[in-house]
C-alpha cells in the first residue's frame, strides 16, 4: 500500500515540473550536475512514493548531513536518488543501510570525495538478503549486468553527489578516480564460501544481513594458475600486496581496510590447506610487509602516520600494511577461474558496517 503524498512533506525535496520527453528530462538533470553522466529514471513523485513504501521510516526522517557540502539527508531524498539510479523498491533498505554506513563519522566521507587519491566507496553485502534480492557475488562480480549491484551502488553515489557535493565542478578532486566511482556494490558468494560469512567475521549474528562500506582506490587482479597448494595462492597474493606505490604503507595509524577478494577456486584450496578465515588474515598480516628502507623517501613518506616506535627501527624492519589482522576485509566472491583480487584502501578512512533493516 503506497504511503500518502503527505508523508513527503516537512523537509521534503523541491517539486519540479519539467516538460518534454524523457530525453529532455535527462538533459535537464545532466545540465544541472545532478547525474553521473549516465541516463537516469526521472524521479516522478509516484515512483518516489513506491520507493518509500519499501521502508518503515517516513520520508522526512533525517539520517544526517552529508559532507563535504553538508546536505541534509532525508529518507525521501535518498529515495529520489534511488529512483534515479534505477533501483527496485525492494533494494531500498540496502541503499539506506549503505547511506547510513557512509554517514558514520570514521568513514570520513567528506575527505573521500575531496582527496586526490581517487577513493570510491565500495559496498559489500553479506547475509541472506543477497540471495533474496539477487545481489551478485559470482561470475564477473565486478562486471556489468546485475541490476541490484549496478543500481544500489549508483544510488548511494548519486546521494553523495546530490547531497554531499561530490562533483568534479566543486568538491571532487581525484587525480584519476576510477569506474568504481559510478557504482561498486557486490555480495559475498556464500554458496562457495568455505568459511563463515563476512558479517559473522565482523561480529554480527548469522541471522542478520549487513552492508560494509570501504573506500577503495582500485582493484588489483591477482592470477595464480600454477600453484594449487593454497599457501602458494597466498604467496602470490602477498607479492601483489607488496608492490611499490601502495599508499597504505605510510598510513597504518589511520586504520583503513584493504579488501581481499578471493575467487572461489583459490578460497577452496586455501581452506583445504587448513586455513580458517582468521588464519588467512593472520597470514596476510605476517607477510604483507615491506622493508622500511624501501619505503624511505618514496610515496607518502613525508606525511607518514604510523606508530612512533617505528621511527627508531632499522632499514630492514618489516613494515606491515595494517596494524592488525582484523583490519583486512576478507571476502569470497567471483566465478570459476584462477583469479583473486584486492582493493588498496584509501588511507584516511575506517570501514563502516550497518545492519540492513
Amino acid at each position: 500500500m503506497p504511503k500518502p503524498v503527505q508523508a513527503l512533506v516537512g523537509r521534503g525535496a523541491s517539486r519540479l515540473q519539467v516538460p518534454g520527453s524523457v530525453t529532455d528530462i535527462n538533459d535537464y538533470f545532466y545540465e544541472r550536475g545532478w547525474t553521473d553522466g549516465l541516463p537516469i529514471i526521472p524521479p516522478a513523485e509516484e515512483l518516489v512514493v513506491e520507493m518509500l513504501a519499501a521502508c518503515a521510516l517516513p520520508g522526512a526522517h533525517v539520517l544526517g548531513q552529508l559532507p563535504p557540502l553538508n546536505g541534509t539527508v532525508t529518507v525521501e531524498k535518498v529515495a529520489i536518488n534511488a529512483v534515479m539510479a534505477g533501483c527496485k523498491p525492494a533494494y531500498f533498505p540496502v541503499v539506506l543501510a549503505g547511506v547510513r554506513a557512509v554517514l558514520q563519522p570514521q568513514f570520513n566521507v567528506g575527505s573521500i570525495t575531496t582527496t586526490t587519491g581517487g577513493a570510491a566507496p565500495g559496498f559489500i553485502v553479506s547475509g541472506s538478503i543477497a540471495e533474496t534480492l539477487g545481489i551478485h557475488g559470482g561470475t564477473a562480480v565486478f562486471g556489468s549486468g546485475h541490476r541490484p549491484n549496478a543500481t544500489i551502488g549508483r544510488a548511494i553515489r548519486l546521494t553523495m553527489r546530490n547531497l554531499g557535493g561530490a562533483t568534479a565542478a566543486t568538491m571532487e578532486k581525484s587525480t584519476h578516480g576510477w569506474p568504481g566511482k559510478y557504482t561498486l556494490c557486490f555480495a559475498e558468494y556464500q554458496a562457495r564460501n568455505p568459511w563463515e560469512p563476512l558479517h559473522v567475521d565482523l561480529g554480527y549474528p548469522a541471522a542478520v544481513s549487513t552492508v560494509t562500506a570501504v573506500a577503495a582506490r582500485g582493484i588489483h587482479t591477482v592470477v595464480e594458475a600454477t600453484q594449487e597448494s593454497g599457501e602458494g595462492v597466498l604467496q602470490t597474493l602477498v607479492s601483489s600486496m607488496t608492490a611499490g606505490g601502495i599508499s597504505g604503507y605510510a598510513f597504518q595509524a589511520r586504520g583503513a581496510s584493504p579488501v581481499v577478494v578471493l575467487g572461489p577456486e583459490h578460497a577452496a584450496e586455501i581452506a583445504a590447506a587448513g586455513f580458517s578465515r582468521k588464519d588467512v588474515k593472520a597470514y596476510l598480516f605476517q607477510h604483507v610487509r615491506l622493508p622500511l628502507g624501501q619505503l624511505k623517501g618514496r610515496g607518502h613518506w613525508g606525511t607518514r602516520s604510523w606508530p612512533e616506535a617505528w621511527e627508531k627501527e632499522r632499514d630492514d624492519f618489516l613494515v606491515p600494511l595494517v596494524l592488525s589482522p582484523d583490519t583486512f576485509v576478507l571476502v569470497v566472491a567471483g566465478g570459476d577461474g584462477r583469479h583473486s583480487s584486492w582493493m588498496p584502501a584509501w588511507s584516511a578512512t575506517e570501514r563502516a558496517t550497518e545492519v540492513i533493516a
Partner: protein
Amino acid sequence: MITQGFVTAAQQRALALGMPGHPVIVLEHPIASKKREHMLQLARHSVEAVVSALVSSLREAHHA
C-alpha cells in the same frame, strides 16, 4: 590554507558552513612532495597573510 587545486572546494565548503567569503590562503600546488625545509619556508612566508586574514575576519565580525 589550501593549495591552488582546492580553491573552489574551499569556497564551496565555506559556503556550506554558512561562512561565505571566509578568508583562504592559497599555496602553490603541490605540497605533498615537498621537503620539510620547503614547508617551513612556505609557512614563514605565509604568516603575514594568515595574520591579516585572521585580523580582517575578527574586524568584520566585530563590525557585524
